[in-house]
């Protein structure tokens, strides 16, 4: 059994290396690869085959997860262009954006006092989704123009939205528990 680990994630799924991808093709290719390489297919195989199967499906799972999500896909494309990310140091310096993010976070904390907190949270989620899709449009423009620094700035901003969504989810769960 052999598996080529040197392909990038797009090549792995036989997709063009670009931001816009067809998610149905991604799902189909993902299943086809899993069907071929999953450890379940090598239950009676030798240790070498079993090890490669685990590594291959680990790689396939990571690739799938990365491409499925727009923010991680945007970041991965830049990494393929040798743009480096340092999670410790990199952050956006756009003060206006940061203030807006702070304000969104405050709004999450403040939904408790609202008449319908769950609805307010959903409204926040909708709002953040809109802003996020605007960012993604900008990203594609910068990326196509090979303006890497500008594109990277957007990826850093997108990470805020990922965390914001996590916070909204957490809050939603906490509120639901209170309702019981």
């Amino acid at each position: 059994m052999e598996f080529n680990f040197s392909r990038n994630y797009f090549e792995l799924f036989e997709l063009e290396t670009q931001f816009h991808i067809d998610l149905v093709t991604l799902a189909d290719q993902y299943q086809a690869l899993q069907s071929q390489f999953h450890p379940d297919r090598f239950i009676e195989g030798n240790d070498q085959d079993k090890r490669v199967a685990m590594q291959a499906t680990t790689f396939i799972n990571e690739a799938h997860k990365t491409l499925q999500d727009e923010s991680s896909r945007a970041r991965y494309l830049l990494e393929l262009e040798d743009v480096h990310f340092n999670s410790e140091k990199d952050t956006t310096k756009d003060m206006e954006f940061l203030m807006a993010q702070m304000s969104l976070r405050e709004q999450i904390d403040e939904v408790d006092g609202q008449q319908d907190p769950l609805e307010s949270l959903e409204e926040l989620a909708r709002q953040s989704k809109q802003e996020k899709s605007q960012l993604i449009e900008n990203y594609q423009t910068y990326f196509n123009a090979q303006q890497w620094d500008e594109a990277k700035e957007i990826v850093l901003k997108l990470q805020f939205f990922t965390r914001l969504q996590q916070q909204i989810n957490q809050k939603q769960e906490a509120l639901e528990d209170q309702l019981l």
Partner: protein
Amino acid sequence: MALLQISEPGMSTAPHEHRLAVGIDLGTTNSLVASVRSGIAEALVDDDGTALLPSVVYYGEGKTPEVGASALENFSKDPLNTIASIKRVLGRSAKDIQSANDYIPFQFENNSDSVPRVKTALGPRTAVEISADILLALKQRAEKTLGGELVGAVITVPAYFDDSQRQATKDAATLAGLNVYRLLNEPTAAAIAYGLDQSAEGVIAVYDLGGGTFDVSILRLRKGVFEVMATGGDSALGGDDFDHAIANWVIEKLDSSIRDDDIAMRRVLSSARQAKEQLTSEVSTVIKVANHPDLELTREQFDLLINSYVKKTVMSCRRALRDAGIEKEDVSEVVMVGGSTRVPLVRTQVEKFFAKAPHTNIDPDRVVAIGAAIQADILAGNKPGDEMLLLDVIPLSLGIETMGGLVEKIVNRNTTIPVARAQEFTTYKDGQTAMRVHVLQGERELVSDCRSLATFDLTGLPPLVAGAAKIKVTFQVDADGLLSVSAQEVNTGVSASIEVKPSYGLTDSEIEGMLKASMDNAQQDMIARSLREEQVEADRVVEALNSALAKDGKQLLEEQELEKIINQRDALIAARHNADNAELIKQAIKNVEAASEEYVARRMNNSVRSMMKGHKLEEFEK
């Protein structure tokens, strides 16, 4: 080729091709073994025609261990040597068991050993050994029925079993001489049992309510591939709670002193269970308690008593849907598993929530073993060309301890397995040459609130300034959901690794408690976390500043400047130890930074490596 072939009973007509594989549901109360024969998955029965094997082992003096119904007969005669419900302690340490609130119906040896051993007339036995005796009985039944040696088995585990509990299950099976093809989550097994029958496509919700646990799993079935999208639940909620609700109602109506009488209490509970079962088909039932008038319990009243429990399970369904990233309208099939799903209110509420009639046609006691048998048959290669494949997830997040008793999550719950994740960490002190890696499982942010899985040391690190060493910790979770961890210093390649071995595990109620608390306390966690983070940051700043001052403070600074920095530093130390407010510490750090700005610039000019790391805008991210 002859038209008629003669073969051994139980053997397929092509013995070289058909490989004997089984699915085993190792349950708390009962266990089952099932296999696919002539294309049909069915539970295998014993000589009396019974499929359910009570999960009970009798260790009588001078006898060979007995398993099942015959073991159960000794329960009243020799209770201490009749071991039941061993699954409740499988994969748990002595400490876990002591701290657990639930009543364990057997005694442990007193020793400091971390592996608990049950006292029996045949000597001490671990939970793994006792479970192995049950599995061995099932293996023997299967080999007798199928007429040959088994090549492999799929064993089911509750979706919420953690790493230790999974390891212990696998060890027990190995001890029983079984070749474990795969550990399979119980709700997933149920979905397979239904999914293949109906060759469905779409999203399946499996609602599994047993005696003491509730699991919900959301799966996508597409082109023969089962993909678990999310799993959730409440591991301390089940049919036993319904019994208690009825019992409490009875006691309130009759006589609250019943509570103090163990034997009377047990009788009331048993009448409560009977009443519950009758209300499945009747609209009202009569509860008889000795020396008290008869009580009528209507289904309406019963529904009121258990309504809050059922509501909770529906809430878990909502949460699992959110974890899966789908709406309830997307669910095309609902599958009911577990004896407690016979309760009418459960069925109606689940049907109402999903707006779909749930599937209930496979015996809820057998459906898990049947699903496991189908999976085993495919893994054994008996169905070449069958594209069925199962992609499962890890049920609880994995992380490691970082400074200040915080957990850094490395693999999030509901990530598809196998998965590997690496994360880099750094040293905290100048010249630090060793680092301890503490692996944890759970959803909470503080170490003390998560389950500790393993600890190991990475030694021989190059003595560098704080923050210069880079330690890459890699988690690998295999297709059984079992974890191994390795750590490596990136620059030197110094490495250490560990297979996470079962020394203990989460109790079901602990997992539930942890998950519940994680939701409830997300807010407090965030406050505690930011405080700890600022404290750690303060220590780091002070440490770095001291070390820099010791080197060149006198050369680069005027006395007055030095004094100013030291004053701010001392204020920071005071704030770090006294303040319970992250903001105050943060401000004190800023003051130190402001006071030492000029000093840092001079050090840079002197081409000395800056030890004062900026941390400005990134703070917003936390």
